[in-house]
């Protein structure tokens, strides 16, 4: 699920359980099925309605009107495993998190089956404790999310009231950015992109990028440009190298083409695809 999903229904209430989870052979499924015998087509849609293993477990518990604090581990584990086996059979792309949860349930189950020794009990406590803590914690935020969705929000429930303002004479150099803002924006955007990319950027030589722009600019005014004309003696070896690297980069990015009409003849560059 993603935020880009479009909401076509007029239902202002965000309660998801009121929408059909699936329509199979014309029959809408508005509630979760009470047993596991779900038409396979519907299962996928139903499983997509879960936000993860904790969500699925909560559903299994709630379906039986059980208090989180009194989860019948054996029973819930059995059901949970049946669900994920079904997912597996249907080649539903099973997130690793579901398997981790299955393992955790199995572990709790086995610990509960072991005969208890009095002193061990004190140290380890109830083997369900950690799971219950996580379920409760998740449920709090699941609820909070539902509540946040109910809060009236801009554009969905109300609009900004605005009157037209004639901005003539209002222009001023107000939209100035300082270099610092720009740098911070760059740093943050790169921090968000993956590490490999930012690493690459760090080493990147801006003089090459600068030169790439100049080469492209030369091509905007003339259709073809003599390769040799890109170099100037005054810039020395360093300058020639930068130009050369810029042309290579542009070739790699399919931004320009090299043309040589005769062997050992003059090389020209031109915009790619023209």
């Amino acid at each position, binding site marked *: 699920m993603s935020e880009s999903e479009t909401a076509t229904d007029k239902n202002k209430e965000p309660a998801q359980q009121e929408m059909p989870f699936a329509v199979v052979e014309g029959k809408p499924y508005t509630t979760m099925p009470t047993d596991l015998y779900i038409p396979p087509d519907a299962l996928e849609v139903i499983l997509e309605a879960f936000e993860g293993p904790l969500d699925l477990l909560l559903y299994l518990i709630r379906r039986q009107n059980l208090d989180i604090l009194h989860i019948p581990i054996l029973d819930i584990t059995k059901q949970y495993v049946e669900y994920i086996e079904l997912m597996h059979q249907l080649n539903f792309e099973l997130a690793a998190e579901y398997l981790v949860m299955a393992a955790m349930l199995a572990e709790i189950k086995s610990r509960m089956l072991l005969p208890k020794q009095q002193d061990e009990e004190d140290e380890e406590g109830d083997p369900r404790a950690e799971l219950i803590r996580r379920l409760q914690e998740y449920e709090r935020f699941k609820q909070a999310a539902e509540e946040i969705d109910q*809060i009236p929000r801009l554009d969905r429930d109300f609009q900004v009231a605005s009157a037209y303002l004639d901005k003539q004479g209002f222009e001023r150099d107000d939209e100035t950015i300082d270099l610092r803002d720009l740098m911070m924006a760059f740093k943050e955007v790169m921090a968000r992109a993956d590490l490999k990319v930012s690493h690459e950027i760090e080493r990147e030589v801006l003089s090459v990028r600068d030169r790439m722009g100049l080469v492209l600019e030369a091509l905007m005014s003339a259709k073809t440009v003599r390769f040799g004309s890109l170099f100037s003696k005054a810039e020395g070896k360093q300058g020639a190298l930068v130009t050369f690297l810029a042309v290579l980069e542009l070739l790699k990015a399919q931004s320009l083409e090299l043309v040589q009409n005769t062997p050992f003849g003059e090389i020209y560059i031109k915009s790619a695809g023209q």
Partner: protein
Amino acid sequence: MEVSELKHIIEAALLATDEPLSIKRLLQLFPEQELTSNDINQAILALEADYQGRGVELKKLASGYRLQTTEAMQPWLLNMWQQRPKKLSRALLETLALIAYRQPITRGEIEEVRGVAVSSKIVHYLMDKEWIRVLGYRDVPGKPAMLGTTKTFLDHFNLTSLQDLPSLAEIKDIETLEPELAFETADSEQQTQESDEHEE
């Protein structure tokens, strides 16, 4: 300057800008008048009263005052527009809830509570909307970013401060559990019931 004139200027300013205006910004309207925050407050109160019972209301938000249509107007307004506003997915809302209530929080911590990976798409969307931002970096290996909500988030959700968010549910005490008694019997009962059901 008379209160009514002050009120009209403030009203025009609120309607001429899209973002909420703070008292401080409203004072900028009057660089040559010797006005205090109190004068502005007076005018705001009068304006608020003027809008009583209409389709537009004056609302106090995290970053200032905003004139906005009332919720009652929305069904009418929707008749005029083709597009309906997008819904927010549960994954996004849960992520946002965790950031709002638990800030500063890292992505890893969000994943711990939700039990699933947080998609980058959601984080990017929230950043782009300027509902969340990086508050700093935690001093642990990998230096994960600590996320928090912004004033823009509060403004968008009609809130003055984070305290206006509904309170989180209580956590029930695990100590009240009585392991020996509770599960053994309940479990086996439930289980038989369940397996009967499935044999049909």
